[in-house]
């Protein structure tokens, strides 16, 4: 079975531009979460979606938004890019959306560079 897939693999954007990152979860998984990982640090939680509804949001500005589609794939959008948005963006899928015990499986990430 295919794991979590993300596209694109790498992306270079200019300050002020907008970017859309895409994620397809493991088949059968209904929950998708997005993380930002700056070099040398652990991933920071951005969003969790379950059954197309936002279930959780981290401490990120409104420039960050996301949505989940009926097939459970997801998009992360970032507007008005700043240099500080340069990071590895990770998508994770899990079989349940509960806040308790659940295991997440990560995709390979999208490396975003803002110049």
């Amino acid at each position, binding site marked *: 079975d295919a794991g979590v897939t993300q596209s694109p693999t790498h992306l270079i954007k200019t300050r002020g531009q907008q970017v859309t990152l895409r994620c397809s979860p493991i088949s059968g998984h209904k929950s998708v979460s997005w993380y930002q990982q700056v070099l040398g640090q652990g991933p920071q939680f951005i969003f969790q979606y379950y059954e197309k509804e936002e279930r959780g949001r981290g401490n990120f500005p409104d420039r960050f938004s996301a949505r989940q589609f009926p097939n459970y794939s997801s998009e992360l959008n970032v507007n008005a890019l700043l240099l500080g948005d340069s990071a590895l963006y990770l998508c994770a899928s899990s079989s349940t959306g509960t*806040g308790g015990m659940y295991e997440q499986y990560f995709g390979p990430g999208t490396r975003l560079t803002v110049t």
Partner: protein
Amino acid sequence: TQLLEQSPQFLSIQEGENLTVYCNSSSVFSSLQWYRQEPGEGPVLLVTVVTGGEVKKLKRLTFQFGDARKDSSLHITAAQPGDTGLYLCAGPNSGTYKYIFGTGTRLKVLA
């Protein structure tokens, strides 16, 4: 928001040595996960611990969840170069749908 602090931050050891990585919080977690991440890739789930005092083994890796479910440890026996990577603990923030990662331990095993 609950925090997870890992120690040490960096560790460089010779092949064959043993090591322990710690993950600590002042808050109770319903479960903790351990991941290993290699450069340019996503974290790979190693184990989930749920019960206080639980011990799980994965080949040369031994994971323990503290009795009070506020801390966890990862012990590697006879480390090999293939164990090199960033080790992360993580868990669900109580009462929310947020998921928290620890600060990470970067391990390098020298041949």
